[in-house]
């Protein structure tokens, strides 16, 4: 995934997140750790990539942009085994889908990657 000008990096070093539920849909709000990194999220955390990341775990993925909060909102449909009281899952309300998304690797410009590594220290 990495090229000469980019390096592959896990989202946890670039964003924070919170997730919740609406019925059988989980939402993940993904927020850039630094406002300047938001364009990287917009460009790289695509619907296609998120769908692939959660394949077998959600039927459909939607994405919304919130540039004012440097955030993206993802809806993961049919991700909660029926949701609410029906679901047998430990995470029936999708509370930790947030960090499941942060496991994803995306290509990141070298300069951003350097800043992100520095921040993580």
């Amino acid at each position, binding site marked *: 995934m990495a090229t000469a000008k980019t390096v592959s990096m896990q989202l946890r070093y670039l964003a924070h997140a919170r997730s919740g539920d609406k019925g059988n849909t989980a939402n993940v709000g993904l927020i850039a750790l630094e406002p300047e990194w938001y364009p990287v999220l917009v460009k790289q955390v695509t619907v296609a990539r998120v769908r692939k990341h959660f394949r077998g775990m959600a039927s459909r993925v939607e994405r919304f942009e919130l540039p004012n909060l440097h955030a993206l909102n993802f809806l993961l449909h049919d991700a909660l085994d029926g949701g609410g009281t029906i679901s*047998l899952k430990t995470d029936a309300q999708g509370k930790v889908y947030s960090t499941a998304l942060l496991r994803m690797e995306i290509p990141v410009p070298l300069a951003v990657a350097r800043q992100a590594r520095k921040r993580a220290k």
Partner: protein
Amino acid sequence: MTGKVVRIAGGQGFWGDWLEAPVRQVRDGPIDYLMMDYLAEVTMSIMQKQRSRNPHAGYARDFVPLMERILPDIVEKGIRVTSNAGGVNPRGCAEAVLESARKLGLGGKLKIGLVTGDDLLPDLDALIAAGHEMRDMDTGRPLADIRDRVLSANAYLGMQPMVEALARGAQVVITGRVTDTGLTLAPMFHEFGWAFDDWDKVAAGTVAGHIIECGAQSSGGNLLKDWRTVKGLANPGFPIVEASADGTFVITKHPGTGGVVSIPSVSEQLVYEMGDPHEYITPDGVADFTTIQLKQAGKNRVRVSGIRGGPKTDKLKVSIAYFYGYKAVGTLVYGWPDAYDKARAADAILRQRLKNLGLQFEQVLTEYVGVDATHGRLAGEPSPDLPEVQLRIGVRSTDKAAVERFTREIAPLVLTGPPSVTGFAGGRPQVEDIVAYWPALIDRTAVEPGVRVEILEA
């Protein structure tokens, strides 16, 4: 900044939240209003289950002793309370609080505003007959399909009846299914006299309500960003809205409390349970979350401004609870070495036994806590050296006998399955009724004429 500021404090983020929070909000600094949200989507189902066993139950029982603790303070300081603790029995809840007030010698000093009319169950057949299909918003199925299993049906009411209750002098407003955000909107509209069709103000109040409706989740609790740096969570400061007449507001918390109010803490709460951010739909209007501007305005102070909104729709959301079936979850813990392999072997044995017994389930779900329970396959292959793994098996069925029999198949694995197993001291799993959630829409005009506001006095 000059002009009137109204302080609205978040006291509870859900039914079961930290009991000290409302007490601290009332005693640790100045506030004008205390809002307490008790109703998550599944909460109405739980309360309904309780009311079906006991007609006096069906509201947040914790609310009454909590109010008993803070009533002397709020009466003395003139703090007003808005809460949807009434659940599926707001009248029972209001009467219990009045009883507490009398016990505390506050007779004649407390007015409670009771909001009813959200309960559609008595009229449900008439509504269906009149063409209100109340289709499930997720599946599109009409309510008639499950009519005989409906246990409760409540429309989400907005702020207006609560504003009326405040205008008529209620110090405590108790409701059933009103929106979480309405509990914050009502004090703002009452205090500033905003018009109900001033959509930007509706949107501003909606955002304020959304930020504080989950309690400390906006003030450092459950905050992922740099979580180790969040200090003092043994005594977290719950969020407070300082609202101004121009529709802007500051989120803060009382001095001397733990947690943090920052752009990240508020942002994480803003995206929580979000759908399409352009259209956060409430009974009072539609807020556009892409217009929200956040600015750090001092330590533990975030200024929120710029919020735009649009008109309310002609529909109200209805929260319907219906009987779905039965479930049970059993767990066992397998120890090192080969903990994961042992747990998987036990799962295979159990599944074979269920099959041999001819039991029918809608679903049998196995999770391995410590391996895949939260992130599924994304967690990757576990270390072969895991010290322990919890096997967690759940079943769901409309056949109660099958679920009942499943609960008796867990403990036998201890002596008849893989070795190094423990953690069964809790006994047999319980068979639980599943009361499920059916979200629907209904015409506003079918509900609003039945909404009532009563003032009850201690």
